[in-house]
């Protein structure tokens, strides 16, 4: 009796999957690049940013950075056991926050600058309260330590000033209340280590929604008011290393270990664009081949693009480490494991430049909320600020 019901339900599930697939195919009528065919490309298909400053002070790998919402401070966490607060314009250090646990993996600044969070291999998320004194400036004290995850915490981000969401290697996300110092709820659905998450605090659109990416290859959209994940997208069989919400709040980009960045829209419920450095290099290699044949010049193409081409042969593991959008979402900054930070024109789906200069792997890239600067953190213990 039960067995028969089981078989019927399995068949129903199969047909439902097929129906969903066909509905998704129907809505996926065009990709972003084809829709943006009338949009004029950037001049010379290039974008160049100036290295405004190199922030030196850490003595070990800088693993994560975060801008304050007013873009006046940059928070950096390093495996030397310190978090530093920088003035990104002058390049001066403003504060130092010593960590109880040196093996930090992620840090975050709350939207109203009342809290700073750090988390890592100690399976706990530490919340530091910011005390603002008009006479003596800011000071910091530990306000709570959230324990509950049974594995490392790979990502943490504030949903509002009092709520923080964490993603962990125990395959769950958790929502914590900073004021009450308790866990609000768990998010259980992933079948692999959660490696990244992204909230949408800056644009204030969909403030209850966040997305998470995991080692099972699924990106899931969560609403803090609903129990199961509201949407899920299968990317590829590889880990999703980084995920970032588009500034408008209905789209997100997921960067995988296979070196491909995929852009998904939640309203259309489908993938709308793909950015693959490998394909871009191949296309450029064939282009420059034609150029060489016609011009008889072995150094054809822009210097930016030819530098991409030459390192194509040495590209070993193309995994995407980190990504972020510029303020309007036109430019996508993406960092590759064996390569620097590449800038993509999102609408035209072409690489328009790169940010180089670091001595080691770039661990994070973050654009400032006011849209004026980019910060890249590296394992060479420095942070570089890029501006126009």
């Amino acid at each position, binding site marked *: 009796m039960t067995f028969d019901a089981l078989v019927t339900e399995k068949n129903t*599930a199969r047909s439902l999957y097929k129906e969903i697939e066909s509905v998704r195919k129907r809505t996926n009528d065009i990709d972003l690049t084809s829709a943006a065919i009338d949009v004029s490309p950037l001049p010379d298909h290039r974008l160049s940013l100036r290295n405004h400053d190199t922030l030196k002070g850490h003595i070990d790998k800088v693993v994560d950075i975060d801008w304050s919402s007013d873009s006046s401070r940059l928070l950096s966490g390093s495996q030397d056991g310190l978090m530093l607060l920088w003035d990104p314009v002058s390049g001066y250090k403003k504060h130092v926050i010593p960590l109880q646990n040196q093996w930090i993996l992620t840090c975050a600044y709350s939207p109203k600058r009342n809290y700073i969070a750090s988390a890592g291999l100690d399976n706990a998320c530490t919340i530091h309260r910011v005390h603002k004194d008009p006479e003596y400036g800011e000071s910091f004290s530990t306000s709570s330590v959230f324990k509950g995850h049974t594995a490392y915490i790979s990502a943490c981000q504030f949903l509002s000033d009092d709520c923080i969401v964490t993603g962990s290697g125990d395959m769950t996300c958790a929502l914590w209340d900073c004021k009450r110092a308790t866990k609000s709820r768990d998010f259980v659905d992933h079948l692999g280590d959660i490696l990244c998450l992204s909230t949408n605090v800056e644009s204030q659109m969909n403030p209850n929604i966040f997305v998470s990416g995991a080692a099972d290859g699924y990106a899931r959209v969560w609403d803090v008011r609903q129990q199961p994940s509201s949407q899920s997208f299968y990317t590829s069989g590889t880990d999703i290393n980084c995920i970032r919400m588009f500034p408008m709040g209905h789209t997100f980009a997921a960067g995988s270990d296979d070196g491909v960045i995929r852009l998904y829209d939640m309203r259309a419920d489908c993938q709308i664009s793909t950015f693959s450095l490998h394909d871009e290099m191949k296309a450029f290699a064939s282009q420059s081949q034609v150029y060489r044949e016609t011009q008889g010049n072995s150094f054809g193409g822009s210097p930016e693009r030819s530098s991409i081409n030459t390192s194509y042969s040495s590209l070993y593991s193309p995994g995407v480490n980190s990504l972020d959008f510029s303020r309007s979402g036109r430019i996508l900054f993406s960092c590759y494991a064996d390569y620097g930070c590449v800038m993509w024109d999102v609408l035209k789906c072409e690489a328009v430049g790169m940010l180089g200069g670091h001595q080691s792997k770039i661990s994070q890239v973050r654009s400032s909320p006011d849209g004026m600067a980019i910060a890249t953190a590296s394992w060479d213990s420095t942070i570089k600020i890029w501006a126009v």
Partner: protein
Amino acid sequence: MKFILGFFIKMSELDVNESIQERINIIKLRRIEELNARLRKTLLRERISASNASYLIINYTKETPDYLVPSLWPMTTEQNKYRRSRQTIRPISNSNDVGCCTIT
């Protein structure tokens, strides 16, 4: 007598195995019913076409000021705090001629 007892023990073992199998099936059934409920919800989700989503994204990128793309959103030196700081606060540190002072 021994043979009959053995037969009954065998039968009861089979019964136990069957009931465990039944219970597993019930759990499986519940799981798949939950999955189907979620799939039905996904199917009923309101979707816009990818073209409409793309046009909304394109319009957003056109309308939102983005100073990292100077060709579209140019900024004067007064507006650009980074360029201003390079010119006013730290002109010395950018110059190659000035180094540390040497005391002889």
